[in-house]
């Protein structure tokens, strides 16, 4: 019978990173994965979507290239080669997944392919064999939740209703798409397909998209998507789906929208199969854990989407490290107010920490400062001036509580804010930090100047 210090159930960014860290710290580790290493993120999430978005951005820039001094004579014949696009996506995914396989080998981690069932906190059954372990790290991830709407199951079977996995594996360039939902993933798919020339309609239950984000951010992105041609219908109630048609109620009337595909992007649920015997405490979001990721069962840790604190790959990985360190004797923890989150829309969004609303609710003496990208020289040179940065700070000591960036490189820019929050930096420090010219990141310094006193490069406040 095989024997390990730690068995990790699930090989996504939560599980495989936990396994590497544990192995680096000296543990004998196995990972059980029923599908592909890399989990949702590398196979059907972060990586393939960003690969497709790269092409969408290039295509958008290319259609606009005359403004940049490039002449493409046969512009009307420029088109997406769907097969090449899908092949590139496959190649990239294969490469990153291959990378994880190598990492497992390099770190002497045994990878067992199969569905793992927990018999007790120390025994896993996989492919009919029993494996014994001192500790467990569960990282089973999450799956798409299809809402209960009349006709949705049927549509899903027929292939007109798709989820995010279906959306990245379409056989051909879709002409039109209805997106149910208005969260981060919905916005990324709206960006992707709209930029590729698909007619996109978003149906949203509440009156705004991205409702968990800072108001200024969600308004900017919503306005921008609409300007770019996405139809966003808010305050709707989904009624039924029939073939390619979605029926919904809006302003008291029954309406409908027809499109090649209906993309359901209405949330995800934790994967809890195979771990039933452990009798773990499960809350509204997922498996409950303490600040070191330990569940109510001693020696059993859970990380990532199945815990559901923030359904993000870097959270899963960070939690995986915390769990591995806890088992190996170092107690660390995550401050979830210091975790960045991104949207790969055009322009991108990068946020971290408190929104203005939340900071007020939390009782801080809140100050805010906004600086627009339209006053930034690099943004003008790039021809991408939609966006801004908003810094939320505590007036008492000037501590930076939250940073919200909308800009073409926001997903890389937010790292500056992450370091600032990690080191409990103040607006004075951000203002004093010399930022290179000309860069988009100068807007952070300007907003910090504005928080302290006045920005340099602004005409009216």
């Amino acid at each position, binding site marked *: 019978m095989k024997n390990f210090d730690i068995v990790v159930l699930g090989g996504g960014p939560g599980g495989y990173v936990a396994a590497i860290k544990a192995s680096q710290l000296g543990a004998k580790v196995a990972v059980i994965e029923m599908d592909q290493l890399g989990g949702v993120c590398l196979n059907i999430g972060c990586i393939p979507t960003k690969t497709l978005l790269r092409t969408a951005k290039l295509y958008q820039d290319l259609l606009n290239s005359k403004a940049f001094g490039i002449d493409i004579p046969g512009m009307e014949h420029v088109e997406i080669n769907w097969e090449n696009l899908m092949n590139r996506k496959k190649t990239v995914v294969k490469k990153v997944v291959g990378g994880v396989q190598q990492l497992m080998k390099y770190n002497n981690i045994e990878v067992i392919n199969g569905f793992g069932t927990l018999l007790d906190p120390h025994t896993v059954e996989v492919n009919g064999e029993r494996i014994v372990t001192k500790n467990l790290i569960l990282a089973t991830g999450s799956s798409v939740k299809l809402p209960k709407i009349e006709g949705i199951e049927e549509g899903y079977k027929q292939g007109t209703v798709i989820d995010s996995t279906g959306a990245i594996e379409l056989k051909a360039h879709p002409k039109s798409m209805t997106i149910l939902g208005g969260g981060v993933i919905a916005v990324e798919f709206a960006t992707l397909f709209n930029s590729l020339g698909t007619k996109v309609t978003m149906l949203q239950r509440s009156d705004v998209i991205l409702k968990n984000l800072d108001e200024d951010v969600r308004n900017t992105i919503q306005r921008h998507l609409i300007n770019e041609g996405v139809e966003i219908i808010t305050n709707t109630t989904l009624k039924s789906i029939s073939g390619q048609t979605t029926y919904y109620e809006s302003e008291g009337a029954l309406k409908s929208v027809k499109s090649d595909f209906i993309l359901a992007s209405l949330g995800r649920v934790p994967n809890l199969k195979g771990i039933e015997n452990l009798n773990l405490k499960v809350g509204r979001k997922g498996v409950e854990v303490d600040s070191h990721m330990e569940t109510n069962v001693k020696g059993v840790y859970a990380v990532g989407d199945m815990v559901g604190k923030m359904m993000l790959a870097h959270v899963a990985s960070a939690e995986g490290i915390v769990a591995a360190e806890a088992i190996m004797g170092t107690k660390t923890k995550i401050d979830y107010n210091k975790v960045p989150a991104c949207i790969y829309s055009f322009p991108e969004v990068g946020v971290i920490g408190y929104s203005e609303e939340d900071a007020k609710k939390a009782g801080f003496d809140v100050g805010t400062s906004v600086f627009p990208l339209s006053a930034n020289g690099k943004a003008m040179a790039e021809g991408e001036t939609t966006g801004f940065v908003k810094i939320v700070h505590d007036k008492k*000591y*000037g501590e930076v509580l939250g940073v919200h960036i909308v800009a073409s490189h926001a997903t890389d820019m937010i790292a500056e804010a992450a370091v600032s929050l990690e*080191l*409990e*930096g*103040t607006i*004075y420090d951000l203002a004093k930090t010399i930022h290179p010219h000309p860069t988009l990141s100068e807007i952070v310094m300007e907003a910090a100047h504005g928080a302290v006193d006045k920005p340099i490069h602004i005409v009216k406040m």
Partner: protein
Amino acid sequence: EVTQNQSAKKILATPVARKMAKDLGVDIQTVIGTGPQGRVMKADIKAAADHLETSAANNL
């Protein structure tokens, strides 16, 4: 009186921790930091200030 070798000690502390220490009258040199590499964080100053308060109360 501040002794020489004490003030020469290099203290890793966050900007907010420094401000808060000054504000609350905590001697940052005496605080053990819980941040990375022993960096003094604002929570450490808060704890030290609370401790000062309780010990002051106990002395009454």
